[in-house]
Structure formats: C-alpha cells, structure tokens
C-alpha cells in the first residue's frame, strides 16, 4: 500500500487528494491498482472535503478497457502494434504531410486534462518541430472569451481572486455558473457565506439553478441577453451616483465611453430585452455597488456565446465601475472548468501566444524562445483555433491532426460536422486513456498514462500551480504524454526535448515564462504556489491587480447588446441550452466508468418545463426527439420548473444522446468560442 498527495483530475477547484495504491505481489510491478481517493485535510481548497467525483476518482483508473497498447487502424478496427512502429508512423506521417502540403496543413490539439509540462511540450512540438502555430485546446470551447475579454480590460485573463477569499465576501454576483454542480467546493463556500455569515447573493441565470434558492435577488434572463442586463446595472449605478469616482479616476480609462454606451440601457428598456423585471435590475445594481467585498463569479453562461467576449468585458466594466477589482474578496472570477485548463492556457497551448501569454507576433518573444529551443524562424503568424481547425479540415485544407486527451466528437459543437471533418483528414493520431468517440477515427492511437501514473503540475482556477504525483506505473504499455511527445520530437530529428523528469520541463518553463518564473518542484510542496510568481523568493499572488491593473490602467470597453446567432422561429421553436451536471464530467469518459456516478445518472436526458411538457404530452421519463438544423437526438424527459417555458436544457455528457449533435457552431468573432448556450430546436414526443 502506498499513498501520494496529488490534485484531483476533475474540475478547476484543484482539491488536494490522496490516492492509495496497492501492488499485488502475484502481479507485475506494472499492475499497480488504485484502491482509494480521499481528501487532504490541510489543503487550502479541499480542507478535508471533496465532492462525490473526487471521492470516487480512484475507480476509472484501472478499468479493463484502458488503452494499454499502441493501436493502428486496420480492417475497420484496430490492431495492436509496438511503440516503435506507432511512433514512427506518427512522426513520419506528420513530416510527410508537412512536406507535401506545408506546415499550415497540420493541427495540434493539446489537453486541458494533461499537465502543464505536457501542454508546454505540445506547443513546443507544434512550433519548434513542425513550425506551425496551429495549436489549441478546449479552452477555446469554454473560457476563450475570458482570456480575450479580461486581457483587453485588465491586462490579464485569469481569475482575479482566490477560492478562500469567497469565505470573507459580503456579496456574490453569480451568473452563468451552476456553481454547486460544476465547482462544488466553490459553490459550497458560497452556500456557507450566505447561510452562516449573511453574505448577499445575486444569481442571474435563465435556469433556476440550486444556488438560486439562497439568492437575495434572482434574475432569470433570456439566454444570450447578458450585455443588456450588465449594462443596465451600470446604467443604474451611474445614474444613482453609486460608482467609485476616485478609483475610476486613478485606476481606469475610458469611463466616458462607458457612460455614453450604457445610457440607453435603462431598466425599462432592458426589461424588454432580457425579460428581467426592471425593479430587480435596480435592486441588484444597488446591492452590488453598495457591497464592499463583492465578487463576480461566472462561467460558461457568460462565455459560450457569439457575444462571449462582450459579455466578459461588460462584467469587467461593472467591476471596475464599483472599485471591485484589486482587493481581497472582490474581483471578476471566471471559474475555469477543467483541472488544468488554466495551465494549458498559461503554458501557451494557444495559437497566438507562447507560454505566459507572450505573443507569437512579438519579435522579442520569438527570439527568446528560439534561443532556448535552439531553433530558427519560429512561426510568427497566429495559427488556427480549434473551431477553425475543424472547418479547415472539412474544407480539405487541414490534412493532419494530432489530438492529446480531447474528445471533440462529443465536446465540440455540431458533432456531425466534426465527424465529417475527422473522416476527411489524411492522418489522425490520438493520445488517449480510453477508446473515446474521437479516438475511433484515429489512424494511430497512443495509450497515455492517467493522472495517477505520472508526475507533473496542474494549475487550478485560482492560478495555483500544484503537484500531481505518480501513484502507480502506467498501466499496460501506456506512457505519460510528456514521454510520448518527447519521443515524437526526437524521431522528427529534434534534439531539444530530452527530459528525464517533468521537473526539468518546469525548470525550462520557468526560464521562459515570467508568471511562472519562480516555480520549481522544490517550491511546490506542500500545496503549490499561485502565479504570478516571478522569482524564486516570490511567495505567489493571492489576488491580482492590487494597486494597479496588469496593464496599468483598466480599460472600460463598453459593448452594445446583440442577440444570439440562432433564436427560435416557427419551425424550431425552443431555445436549447447545454451544460454540465454534478454527477458527470464533460464527455463522460471517466465519470461514466465510475459506478457510483453512473448509478446516479446512467443516461442522458433533457430538462423541459411542465407547461411545455403538458402541451407536447411529454411525461416524466418519456422518450423525446430533439432536432436542430444540425442534427437530431433521442433522449428521456425530465419535467422540471428549473427551465423557463420555451427553453430546454441538455447536459452534454452522454454520447448516445449527445447535446452537441444539436448545437450551433457559430462563434464569437474574436475568441472563436461556440455558442453552446443558445440555439433553436424543436421537440416531439416519440
């Protein structure tokens, strides 16, 4: 029996948890089994607690259907081959395609589940070895709007404050975040603050989420009308003189433009757009402005829109207006979903930046990376995003894709389009732990080690860089992604990925990445460090923008309201929103292989309002068909007041009733994030 302290693989809370492992003397050393997972009592986030997923994280790791050997496509199925053959195939095919079509025909999808070190290597592979900036990952689908919006307004795209600061806040404005479902250890802190300390809570969500029952004010806006209600709050705050003149003067710029833009968003005007009663808008504005330690908390409901960037900028405006940035227990707090989506962004698995958000267009940045990586001519033009990669693949321009730990067939919008794009590729290689729906399309599948089988770091939503530790050897012949990526680089003739341990990769990262400058494995015990951590002595940073914004002065960037891309019409008369639930995780590859979680919610469903159900003669548990312009699915109905009339909600975890068969691939023009939260569908009982 052995035990390691590691970080939970599920959400961005980044709870500290222990994995217990057992090696059977009769079995080989490679047959280690994880037999338990439980919380760290002293870890700042978990504090002795975990959500149900963390408590059951031990189970999926040793499932028999883990990929244990490299596979190549053969006769309609897959055939096991040696690592040597598989790796040769990947490197040679990628090089050949590069030679024939140019580096722009290649795409690299990194993984928000993989470690910081692995994300760094993926982007290094794409850039230094294949000379392309076509590297991206699933942040594109979730917080790309945040990265763009907060970088533009504040100069830094990350959560401004820390998780424990929730415990001291006076007020939470929670919008587009079903916090108790998706970030249970943060949602819990909100519940405690509200119930035990009398903190106020404003919830703005078209669905009556769990948190709404604790809300001082609950506003149910129509999907996609966020710029309007946020502008309305600014309108009231300015009109009633509740804004912080001194703060605005000293720390921000462009206030006059904000004032002009929000003038038309009176509560009455906004009620027409959003359906939020004007009195609630006024009360919410006053409550937010007058609370001293007020935290804005948001997630996909704000970001996953064609106006995602505008939504984020509007929240930033609201926070700056009332001096709620740059102090403890305040701020604009995007809750990052995946265990390491923050890290994947930080480490440059993005088409326009290297690690540390250093632009690829910046000559000095390129020169620095060229020097360290010992290459010349790193590509200087921003590459393709995930959403664009699939479009280009479908058009026939992108020929090869290398995907690490992602499942676009289930997670990307318009699944049929994704499947066609994958089919059209000349070459697809996938690093995976299970044979996912996406891996089914691969020419080569490389079996990867899970989080329990390697060392590395994850960065949680509060910018905490924390260790994961190896508990067992990789199962079967699986290898950690960092080893796989290094091998491919080596076989492509590149000598700069010669590491014997992930800590060396982190040392390289620290040299190239100012915000991680002081991070090294010997400094991460016991519970990590929060970036910015620019030097070896720096203790890390609990909250950002203290005294001044990352870019100096914060910029008000006011936005006009624009409706979602596809609203209901006569034929497709319902609004579909998609999202997540507590019991499962994203595309379900891990959670649906966990008995307790699977038992709670064994199959997909759709939430439908009782009045709509009655009109359509749909009963609880009844089968329904949902269709959109992209496709159709069959699923079971859950009749609930949680959704408004005329709206339905489908969680995206279930491949047999996949929400993304229906969703609209329209994206935000700058962030390129899809509009998962609004599209038009029709429903019928079957």
């Amino acid at each position, binding site marked *: *029996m052995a*035990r390691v*302290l590691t970080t939970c693989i599920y959400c961005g809370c980044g709870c*500290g948890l*222990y994995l*217990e492992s057992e090696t059977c003397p009769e079995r080989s050393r490679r047959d280690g*089994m*994880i*037999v*338990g*997972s*439980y*919380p*760290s*009592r*002293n*870890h700042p986030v978990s504090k*002795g*607690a*975990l*959500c*149900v997923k963390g*408590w*059951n994280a*031990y*189970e999926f790791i*040793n*499932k*028999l*259907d883990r990929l244990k050997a490299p596979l190549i496509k053969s006769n309609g199925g897959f055939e096991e081959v040696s690592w040597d053959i598989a790796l040769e195939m990947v490197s040679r095919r990628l090089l050949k395609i590069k030679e024939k079509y140019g580096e722009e025909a290649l795409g690299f999808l990194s993984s928000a589940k993989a470690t910081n070190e692995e994300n760094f290597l993926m982007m290094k592979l794409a850039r230094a070895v294949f000379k392309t900036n076509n590297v991206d990952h699933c942040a594109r689908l979730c917080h790309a709007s945040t990265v763009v919006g907060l970088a533009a307004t504040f100069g830094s795209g990350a959560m401004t404050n820390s998780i424990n600061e929730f415990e001291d806040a006076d007020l939470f404005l929670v919008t587009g975040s079903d916090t*108790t479902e998706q970030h*249970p*250890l943060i*949602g*819990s*802190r909100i*519940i*405690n603050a509200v*119930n*035990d300390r009398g903190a106020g809570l404003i919830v703005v969500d078209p669905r009556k989420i769990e948190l709404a*029952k604790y809300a001082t004010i609950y506003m149910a806006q129509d999907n996609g009308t966020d710029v309007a209600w946020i502008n309305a709050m600014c309108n009231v705050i300015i009109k009633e003189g509740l804004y912080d003149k001194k703060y605005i003067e000293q720390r921000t710029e462009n206030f006059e433009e904000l004032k002009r833009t929000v003038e038309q968003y009176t509560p009455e005007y906004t009620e027409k757009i959003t359906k939020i009663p004007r009195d609630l808008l006024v009360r919410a504005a006053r409550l937010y402005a007058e609370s001293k330690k007020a935290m804005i908390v948001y997630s996909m409901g704000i970001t996953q829109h064609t106006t995602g960037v505008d939504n984020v900028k509007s929240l930033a405006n609201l926070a700056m207006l009332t001096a709620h940035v740059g102090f403890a227990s305040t701020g604009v707090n995007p809750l990052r979903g995946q265990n390491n989506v923050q890290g994947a962004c930080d480490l440059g698995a993005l088409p326009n930046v290297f690690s540390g958000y250093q632009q690829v267009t910046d000559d000095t940045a390129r020169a620095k990376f060229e020097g360290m990586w010992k290459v010349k001519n790193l590509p200087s033009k921003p590459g393709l995003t995930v959403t664009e990669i699939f479009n280009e693949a479908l058009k026939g321009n992108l020929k090869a894709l290398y995907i690490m730990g992602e499942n676009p067939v289930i997670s990307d919008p318009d699944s049929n389009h994704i499947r066609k794009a994958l089919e059209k590729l000349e070459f697809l290689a996938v690093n995976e732990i299970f044979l996912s729906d996406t891996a089914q399309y691969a020419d080569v599948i490389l079996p990867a080690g899970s989080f329990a089988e390697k060392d590395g770091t994850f960065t949680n939503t509060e910018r905490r860089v924390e260790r994961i530790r190896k508990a067992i050897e990789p199962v079967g012949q699986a290898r950690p992604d960092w080893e796989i990526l290094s091998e491919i680089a080596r076989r492509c003739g590149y000598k700069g990925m010669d590491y014997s341990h992930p800590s060396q990769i982190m040392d390289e990262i620290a040299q190239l990445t100012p915000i991680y400058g002081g991070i090294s494995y010997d400094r991460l*015990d*016991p*519970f990590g460090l929060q970036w910015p951590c620019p030097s070896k002595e720096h203790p890390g940073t609990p909250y950002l923008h203290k005294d001044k914004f990352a870019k100096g002065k914060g910029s008000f960037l006011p936005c006009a309201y624009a409706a979602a891309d596809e609203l209901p019409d006569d034929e497709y008369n319902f609004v579909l929103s998609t999202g997540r639930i*507590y019991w499962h995780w994203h595309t379900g590859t891990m959670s649906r292989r966990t*008995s*307790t979680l699977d*038992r*709670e919610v064994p199959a997909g469903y759709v939430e439908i309002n009782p009045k709509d159900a009655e009109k359509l003669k749909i009963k609880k*548990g009844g089968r329904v068909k949902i269709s959109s312009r992209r496709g159709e699915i069959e699923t079971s109905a859950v009749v609930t007041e949680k959704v408004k009339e005329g709206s339905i909600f489908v969680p995206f975890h279930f491949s047999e009733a996949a929400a993304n068969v229906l969703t609209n691939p329209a994206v935000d023009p700058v962030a390129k994030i899809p509009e998962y939260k609004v599209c038009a569908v029709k429903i019928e009982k079957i």
Partner: protein
Amino acid sequence: MKERLLKKDNVKALCVSASDQWETYVPLEGFGGDVQFTKLDNEKRELSLDKLNLNYEILTVPPKVTVFPQLESLFRFQDEKISETVKPKAPILLFGLRACDVKGILFTDDFFKRNFEDIYYLNRSMNKLLVIVGCKHPLENCFCTSTKTGPFLESGFDLQLVDIGNKCLVEIGSEKGQEFVSSYGKFFDEASKDDVECSKIAKRDAEEAVRLRLDFEEAIKKFCDDKVPREIYERIAERCIYCGGCLYVCPTCTCFNVFDDIKASSGGRYRNWDACVFAGYTREASGHNPRFEKWLRTSRRYEHKLKYDYLTTGTSGCVGCGRCLSSCPVNIGISQVIEEVSKR
C-alpha cells in the same frame, strides 16, 4: 486492569520490532501536516517512523480503511477460471488509534459478522491488536464524552496508552494485549503508583477538554420514538451537496456497492464504499425510488446511525468523532442534529 509503562523514547523501536511479526499501522505525518494511518514498509520503516505523530488532530479517513478498503476486489476470473481475492489472514497491529476510532472498528467488526460472515473483512480484521493512544487535545467538533466513546475507553482495546509527559501509562485491556507486552517486554517498564495517578489526571484533563457537550441519550430516545421533526431533515437535505463525504469518513459506516469490470472473457468483481444519501442507493429497476426526495435520504442517513443501529445492536452508530462535520463542504454535522433533536 494491569498497567505498564512505555517511555516515549522507546516507541519507535517498539514499532520497528513489532513490524517483524505484525503488519503495523501507525499515524504518519505527510504533506502539509496531514496525518494518516500508514502501513510500515519493512524496508523503509525507520525512515517512515521519523514522521510518527501520535499527537495528531484526526485521521481524515478512519482506521476502518485498513480492514475495509475503499475499493477491493472480491474475485477475478479468466475464461472459466475464478479466483477469490480474499486477503490471507495476517496479524495486524493498529498502533495509535483514538478511542472513538476503536469504537468504530468494534462496531464494524460486529456488522461484518452479524448476519453473514464477510470473509473479505474478517480475514483482514480478525487477528488484530488495537492500541489506543488517548486524545490529549480534542478538537472543536469532537463530542466523544457525550457518546461515551472517549477520550479513553474502559474496555474494547488491547492496550491503551495515556500520555503522561515523556512516557505513557499502558493499560492492558485483554489477554492479547498482555501477550504483546510480554513478547516485547524489553520496551516496557514497571508503572509506579505515581504514574497511575498521573494517568488518572491526564484522563480527566482530556475529558474536560472536550468542549462540545450534547444530551446524546435524549436524542437517541427521540429518534427511537420517531419524534424527529421532518423539518430538520428538510433543512439539511436542501443544504447538502451529496458528496457522500460524511458517510465515507464515518468510522461505523459499512455500506458498499458491488460492480463488475469485464473485458472479453476476463475481469473481476469489486466492491467499493457506498453512501445512503445517494438517490441511486434505493432506485428500483422500474425507475421508482422510495427515497427519491432529498429529505427522505437525509432521514435515512441519520436514522440509521441514531435509531436503527441502536435498536439493532444496543449501541448507536455515532462515536462522536466529528469527522462528518470536518469533511462536509457545507458545514453539516451529526452533532448539530443531535443537539437540535435533544433540545426540541
């Protein structure tokens, strides 16, 4: 009761020596001050024992995990061949338990024998030595004096150590305990009258240090008489986030789920910790669920500990350890329920 003395300086050496004969579990401090019960690895035991911490606050998961792991295999099969994966009986030494946790183990021992003999549990558990190191600094969530499960026990242990400075008074509670002390006699000394007196004072001090005082008997009475207002359950059920933590960490919880993992014609059957607050726990094949509403599941959870366990065994299922509250993300604990029910 017979007594001996164990100098603190001898503790490590005793553990090293004992681990030749016994699978020895001791509380070791790990990262950031987390202390967990860890099996001493014969190769690394001296090094590990540098991290021995008998003054720990609490073990996050109770020692039941040593005899009832979170996940264990029941049998494996390959084509037609089936092999039960019962752990061979081996003597285990649990050194450094708290009184409440020993009560927990005695409770689970009884459960796994009561209606059926659970060979997986019993093989791990039936040859064990329980050594209490009594609590000196009860935590704010502890209420063992109300449940009469600590900080020291009158019986149920093999050895009970009372910290009296740079030495511990060793109370021998069983024949097995006596045998152990005899076998490892060179580590133990004679206890003087003075030592015994000091131990009585230490015990009293520990008892007085338990701050949370509840009228536990009154609460049990009300539970058994079904006089618990539904409103209490409803309130808790609304706040609960259904993590299962309170039950996973409970020293007397024994529920488990069974599942199979099969690939082609080989695989295994496993069991893992379950919790009765989950809806799926009683959902029937038809989809009907007699305890679908949250408050019904909450009531099940508390009635199990405070009514049914008591009616079935004569002891309640609560050992006053306060873990459920410590591991609850939304600050719910059985102590609050006991307090409210006893006062109503």
